[in-house]
C-alpha cells in the first residue's frame, strides 16, 4: 500500500460541510473528540483553525477545550503539510543503528528541519519515537509505509520514488517556513 492521501494544500477551499457532517456522525461515540480529529487529519493532513468552532459547537464544549486537546498531541499539527509526511524514528533502538546520522542526512537532503515542509510542498519532516520496528532499524515512516534498515542511500531512493518532481541534492530553500 502506498497511501499519500492528504488532499490539502494551502489555498484550497476547506471542506467545512464535510467536517460538520463528520462531527455529527462521530459524536454519538463515547469520547468522540480524538476520532473526529483523526478523521480530519486523515483527510486534510492537519487540523485547520476553521474546524475548531465546528467541533466545539457539535460537541457542546468550549473552543479553548478543543484547542487544549489539539495542542497536547504531536499528531495534530495545525498547519498544512506537504504531499508526503516523512517521519524518522529518533528513539533508542534506532539510535543504536545510526538514526542520528540518518536524520542529519535527511535534513540536509531536504533542506529543512523537523516540523518544516520543503519549498516545493513535497515533504514534511517529523520526528517519531518508535515505530515498533526496533530489531531492524533505523526505521522511517513515509505516509503509511514503514521502512526498516534505512541507509542514507535507501532514504534517497524512497524520497525519489515518492517525489512528484525530481529531487535536487541542494537544500531547496534557506527558510522553508517562517
Amino acid at each position: 500500500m502506498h497511501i499519500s492521501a492528504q488532499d490539502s494544500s494551502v489555498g484550497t477551499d476547506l471542506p467545512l460541510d464535510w467536517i460538520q457532517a463528520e462531527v455529527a456522525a462521530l459524536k454519538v461515540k463515547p469520547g468522540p473528540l480524538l476520532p473526529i480529529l483523526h478523521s480530519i487529519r486523515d483527510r486534510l493532513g492537519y487540523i485547520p483553525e476553521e474546524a475548531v468552532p465546528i467541533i466545539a459547537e457539535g460537541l457542546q464544549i468550549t473552543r479553548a477545550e478543543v484547542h487544549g486537546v489539539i495542542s497536547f498531541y504531536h499528531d495534530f499539527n495545525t498547519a498544512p503539510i506537504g504531499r508526503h509526511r516523512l517521519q524518522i524514528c529518533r528513539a533508542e533502538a534506532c539510535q543504536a543503528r545510526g538514526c542520528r546520522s540518518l536524520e542529519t542526512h535527511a535534513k540536509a537532503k531536504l533542506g529543512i528541519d523537523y516540523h518544516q515542509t520543503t519549498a516545493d510542498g513535497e515533504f514534511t519532516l517529523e520526528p517519531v519515537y518508535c515505530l515498533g520496528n526496533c530489531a531492524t532499524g533505523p526505521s522511517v515512516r513515509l505516509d503509511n509505509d514503514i521502512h526498516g534498515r534505512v541507509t542514507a542511500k535507501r532514504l534517497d531512493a524512497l524520497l525519489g520514488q515518492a517525489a512528484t518532481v525530481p529531487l535536487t541534492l541542494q537544500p531547496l530553500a534557506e527558510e522553508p517556513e517562517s
Partner: protein
Amino acid sequence: MTRIYVPRDTTALSLGADEVAAKLEQGCAERNLGVELVRNGSRGLFWLEPLLEVETDQGRIAYGPVAPEDIPALLDEGLLNGRPGHPLYRGPTEEIPYLKKQQRLTFARAGITDPVSLDDYIRHGGYVGLRKALAKIAQEIVDEVKTSGLRGRGGAAFPAGIKWQTVLDADARTPNSPYSKRKFIVCNADEGDSGTFADRLVMEADPFMLIEGMTIAGLAVGADTGFIYLRSEYPVAHQILNEAIARAEEVGYLGDNVLNSGKAFHLEVRLGAGAYICGEETSLLDSLEGKRGQVRVKPPLPALKGAFGQPTVVNNVLTLAAVPFILAEGGQAYADYGMGRSRGTLPFQLTGNIERGGVVELAFGITLRELLEDFGGGTASGRPMRAVQVGGPLGAYMPESQWDTPLDYEAFSEVGAVVGHGGIVVFDDTVDMLDQARFAMEFCAIESCGKCTPCRIGSTRGVEVIDRIRANEQRDDNLILLRDLCDTLEDGSLCAMGGMTPNPVRSALQYFPDDFYRDPTTASNTTREEA
C-alpha cells in the same frame, strides 16, 4: 496446490515482504506453478525477514531473508518442494534453534496462521478458553487468573487477578451518568517504549487471541464493552485489528450475544495521537475520553473509577493475550513456568544493534547474557557490546558486569534496573553514554504531560546541564547539579515519566563515567544531534 507463506507484519513489510510476494506470484505464473499464497503473521524471527515458508510433507520449510530478486533462483532451485541447496534455505522452520529453544505460550500461533482467518485461529486452539469461561461464573474466571500468578506486562507488574477482582466487586452505579452500571475493559496498546514490539506482533500475527482475552475479561468482571487504545504509529496493526474484529462480529464471537450466551461484548479500536505519556493508564483514560492525556492523581483507582467514570480493567496487550491460554489450560499450567514471583513467560524483544533481533518468548529466569549471546548472536556491527538498556526509555543502561542478572522482576529491581515490557536495546562500543543520558532528559521534556514542574522544567534543565558537562563548563559543579536534578525528578513527579527518567541518566553516570569527562574538542563517538 502448494501453500506458501509470506508474512504481512510491520517488520516483514518494512523489509519488502509485499515486493517479495508480488515477485513470487509473478514467478509462479510465468512458470505455470499453482500456489496458494498465504499472508501470515511473522514468527518474530526478524533477522530472517522476509521469511518465506513453504508447506511440504516434512512440515514448513523456511527461506530467509528473501529479497525480491532472489525469487527466480529460488523457484528454479526447487523452492516449492522445500529443497535445500539455496543459500537462503533454513530448513524446517520449527527446527531453527532460535525458535525451537523458546517456550511459546503467547506466541504459539504467531506466524503459523493467517492473522485474520478465524478458521485458522480455531483450528489452532483458539476460542477454547472463551468456551471454558462461558461455562464458569465470573468469580471462577477471576480465580483462574489469580492461580496463574499473571502479573501485568505493561511495566508495573501488578497481579492481574487482583485488579480483576477489584473491578468485579466494584459498584458501578453512578447517579446521573449515562454510563451508570457499566464497566469497561481497556487494552493498553500504546506500546511506547523504544525496543518493544511484542504487543504489535500479537495484534498483527494473532489478533483473535487479544480479542478472546478481552472477551474473557469482560465476562470475568461484567463489562460489555472494550476499547483497544492503539498508538497511531502502528498502521498495520490498526488495519489487521479492525479486520479481525469485523470477522469476529460477523460470526457472533463479538456482539450483543456472544456465542449465544446472552452476554454482550463489543470491541472498538481507538487511536492515540503520538503521545508517549498516554501509555500511562490514567492519562490513557483521559485521552480515550477525548481530553488532554494528563496523568490523574490516584486514588481513585481506574479499577473503581476508570473510563467514563466507571469501573475499568486496564491491562496491557500481553496481559490480556495470556488469558486465553490460562482459561484453556488452567491457571496452574501457566504458573508452572517462571521463577519466584514472576510466573509464566515473557516475550523478550531483542533490538538495536543486535545480529539476530526478534521476539524471544521464555519463562522468567533466563539471564540477559544468554539472551544477548545465545539468541542475539552479538552485535550487528560486529563490534563489542557496551551497554544494554532494558525496559524502555525509563529503564537503566546496564553494563557488562550486570548481564548475568536473571530476567525476573525482583532480581532486576535489586540491581536498580527494570524488566518493564521486556524490551532489550543493545549498543556497541561506539555509543556515547552522555548522548544517551541527554536523550533521556530530552525525551522527558518532549513527552512530559506538563503536570509536575520537575518533570516539565527539570528535564529541560537536565539537557542544558548535560550540554555544559559536555562543553566542560564547570564540569564538576554541573555533575553535582545533574545528580540533584535526578533526585528532584524522582521525588517531585506524580508518575514514572518524571520519576524514572533518572534511571537511564544515573546508570550512564555510574557505569560509564568516562563519557562525561571527554575532551570537548574531540568528537563524540556518534554523530551528534544538534539541538
